[in-house]
């Protein structure tokens, strides 16, 4: 369990998250991709805190703030999904063509 | 080191779970008998007889359930009860996991219980089970909030999130007296979290058994044992957080913890038999409008008490 292996694991999670966020047509699955990206980011932050940061408290604080941001993003994302569904009966990204050129 | 750190705590927790589940079943039948329900057979043998009978029954199948989740959910609930019981300190040094953040671990047990009960209701692919699971999730979020505020109030005088420290801080005065709102709120949370009695919305009679309406045989046995085990784990946490844990005069520490757990179990089972079930809509109003502000007041009280 060295810093390198932890960062590789975080990179893998972020890579899977990018795949999910870009490839999924449904809003909720897209958000799950974003959650995976944030998961990888949090793991990387804690790995840096444990190995390179000498346990400076700002590392843990960053992780807690990212957790709070995750909750905020999920809440607002679901509210927007509900609002879009009520307005346009749309549950896939393909149905939202208003800004299409 | 492997023996004392891994095997002994696991054995301790398993022993307490089996004994505790048996005691819960017996106590429930005794209380039901005291209230006039007819008893079939002797009270002390009845849980064993029912367990043996359930083991021989056929495990029911519905149409296209989520097999892995359905069969795993009772076992996962039992595992969560075991984790909850593992944080209860039996004396200053006898505790299965002395994690620094054991109060938050108990909170995560409550949150993961929501997941498991929803899975149990969802994966049966049956209507009443699904309704039971949804009802539990709708109210489970409110219990978790109230329980965390009450437990933060308990952790404040201890200046630590460790249950051993929480118990040690009650040397002068038990938390049930020092924070009077805490134990009643926590007992209500316990009834809700283990969906027992008045707050039994997940497995209620009006849903013909709710999340347990489609299971029979060995899965049903594991589910019933898991529910009793979660009651035991909850009573252990309540005894440590509010009733002073291992503290008491002549008897040894672990015996005091067992006596206090028994007292909390008696109160919970009595309330389960005496109070009628609350309708879900009223429950939501009750939780968010009455009990949550009360838990805030309890937290402020605990904060003022810690500052003075």
């Amino acid at each position: 369990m060295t810093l390198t292996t932890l960062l590789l694991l975080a990179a893998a999670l972020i890579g899977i998250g990018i795949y999910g966020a870009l490839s999924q047509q449904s809003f909720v699955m897209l958000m799950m991709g974003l959650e995976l990206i944030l998961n990888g980011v949090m793991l990387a932050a804690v790995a840096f805190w444990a190995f390179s940061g000498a346990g400076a408290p700002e590392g843990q604080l960053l992780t807690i703030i990212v957790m709070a941001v995750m909750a905020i993003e999920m809440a607002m994302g679901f509210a927007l999904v509900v609002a879009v569904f009520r307005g346009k009966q749309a549950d896939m990204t393909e149905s939202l063509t208003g800004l299409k050129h | 080191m492997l023996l004392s750190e891994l095997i002994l705590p696991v054995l301790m927790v398993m022993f307490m779970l089996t004994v505790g589940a048996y005691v819960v079943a017996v106590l429930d039948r005794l209380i039901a008998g005291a209230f006039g329900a007819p008893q079939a057979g002797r009270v002390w043998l009845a849980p064993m007889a029912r367990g043996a009978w359930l083991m021989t029954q056929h495990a029911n199948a519905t149409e296209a359930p989520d097999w892995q989740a359905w069969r795993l959910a009772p076992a996962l609930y039992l595992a969560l009860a075991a984790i909850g019981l593992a944080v209860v300190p039996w004396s200053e040094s006898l505790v299965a996991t002395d994690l620094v953040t054991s109060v938050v671990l108990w909170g995560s047990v409550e949150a993961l219980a929501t997941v498991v009960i929803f899975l149990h209701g969802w994966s049966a692919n049956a209507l009443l089970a699904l309704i039971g699971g949804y009802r539990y999730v709708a109210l489970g979020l409110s219990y978790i909030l109230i329980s965390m505020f009450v437990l933060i109030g308990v952790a404040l005088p201890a200046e630590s999130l460790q249950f051993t420290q929480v118990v040690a801080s009650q040397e002068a005065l038990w938390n049930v007296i020092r924070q009077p709102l805490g134990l009643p709120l926590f007992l209500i949370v316990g009834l809700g979290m283990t969906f027992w009695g008045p707050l039994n919305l997940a497995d209620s009679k009006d849903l013909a058994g709710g999340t347990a309406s489609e299971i029979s045989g060995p899965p049903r046995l594991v589910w019933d044992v898991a529910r009793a085990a979660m009651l035991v784990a909850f009573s252990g946490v309540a005894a440590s957080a509010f009733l002073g844990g291992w503290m008491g005069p002549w008897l040894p520490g672990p015996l005091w913890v067992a006596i206090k757990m028994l007292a909390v179990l008696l109160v919970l089972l009595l309330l389960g038999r005496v109070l009628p079930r609350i309708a879900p809509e009223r429950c939501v109003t009750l939780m968010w409008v009455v009990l949550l502000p009360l838990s805030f007041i309890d937290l402020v009280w605990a904060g003022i008490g810690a500052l003075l």
Partner: protein
Amino acid sequence: MNHGIGIDITFLSLATLAVVTGWRVFRTDSMVRASFFLLVSFIAVGVIMILLAAEYLGVAMFFMMAVEMTVMALFMVMFMMNPAGLNPMNMVHQERISIGAGIVGFLVLGAMALLAAFPDQPVSADLEPVRSLGNEMLGDSMLIFESAGIVLLTTMIGVVVLSSHRGRYGAAAVGSLPPGLEPGGDPAGKPEEKDEDEEGGGHHHH
């Protein structure tokens, strides 16, 4: 930090669990299972954090992610067409680009992990992470903490406003018409009936 072989084995199994369940999230047919696979991935990462001596963060991960993934599962059931996975489903678009982007992201970050020289200042064994986090949050970083709280409150209010049935001019069922069942179609619900009996004939009221 020197870890024993037990911790390394635990870490490797948790790492594979996190990556495999993270990948299964996007490959499974059942939507509820997808959100709970994501929960398992989060729990694996939480246990790794506990192994790294960040005890509060790991347990807080279990706690928060359990409830968040349950809410996500509920939204899956609400908005997705195949929540139980009884039919196979593959709703993806621009799949090659996204696989490419994922692999490029992993390679870039992995290259940074392998090639960059990070300082070696391990956390000391006598650090109490919970105590130091608490002192930091309520001491020097109190402003960050408080503003995060205010942002959470704003989010709660915003979410309720966005998803509420009440608009500025009253409840939704009173003054407005619901959207159509097809885009651009007639409003859903009963069509308004023209009362023709009231126009002709009948008694006039003075």
